[in-house]
């Protein structure tokens, strides 16, 4: 087992542990903080798989921007920590069955796919050639994504502003208490 393989399995363990912690925490703030560790692990995995530019983007956008946005919203809303979960087998049965089915099917697909056990050759795409590639072949998709980001900005402003002229005094008072 080479050093790369050791690093890969350690990273996989880190990502799985951090994500598992994130999805089981009761407090959303704890969940977000452990998810940041999971995204750091993913960024290191991207770096290992030869995508240094995407590793940087993962840290800047996912861990830096998106998770901090989550933190801001959680702090703004004052989310009640005690969510009424309560394990009831009847309610969870469909999701458990569907999840196991999905797991079995995807495991079969991955294992039976020819050539899937082939070892990955190390390769690296420098940010320069990645940028050339994206802007030569996929410039239209880049434009579409930028339009989508603009629409998301507009939607967030529109939704966050509330109902505009008509005020809802009762709810506003409820927010401040």
């Amino acid at each position: 087992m080479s050093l790369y393989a050791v690093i890969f399995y350690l990273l996989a363990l880190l990502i799985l542990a951090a994500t598992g912690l994130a999805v089981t925490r009761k407090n959303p703030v704890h969940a977000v903080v452990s998810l940041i560790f999971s995204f750091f692990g993913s960024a290191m995995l991207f770096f290992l798989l030869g995508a240094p530019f995407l590793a940087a983007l993962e840290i800047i956008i996912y861990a830096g921007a998106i998770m901090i946005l989550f933190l801001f919203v959680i702090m703004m809303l004052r989310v009640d920590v005690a969510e009424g979960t309560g394990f009831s087998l009847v309610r969870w049965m469909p999701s458990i069955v569907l999840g196991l089915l999905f797991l079995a099917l995807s495991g079969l697909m991955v294992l039976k796919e020819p050539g899937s056990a082939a070892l990955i050759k190390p390769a690296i795409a420098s940010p320069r050639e990645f940028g050339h590639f994206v802007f030569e072949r996929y410039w239209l998709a880049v434009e579409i994504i930028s339009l989508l980001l603009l629409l998301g900005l507009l939607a967030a402003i529109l939704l966050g502003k509330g109902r505009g002229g008509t005020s809802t005094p009762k709810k506003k008072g409820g927010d401040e208490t």
Partner: protein
Amino acid sequence: MIVPFNHVFMLAGAVFFLGLICIFTRRNLIMTLIGIEVMMNAAAIVFVASAVHWNRLEGQAFVLFIIGVAATEVAVGLALVVAAHRVTGSVDPDRYNFLKW
């Protein structure tokens, strides 16, 4: 890199499964959005691994677009959560059981 290709797929599948569990079992809209983020991250891992396996840069290009879509989705989703919280005072989806705005 001496890692079989399908081990990366298994890692991504496990991460995707964790996101699915998060969506199905948590009754908190913010945790649901976090689950969606985890699932998108799993998809990105698969794309990067495929890019290095077949030596094609398309996989990495699509991860760029996945990140853009995820950022938009989180911005709009969190704005929706804030708007819903303004109306009902809760982030529990079970409380959203009336049509009055």
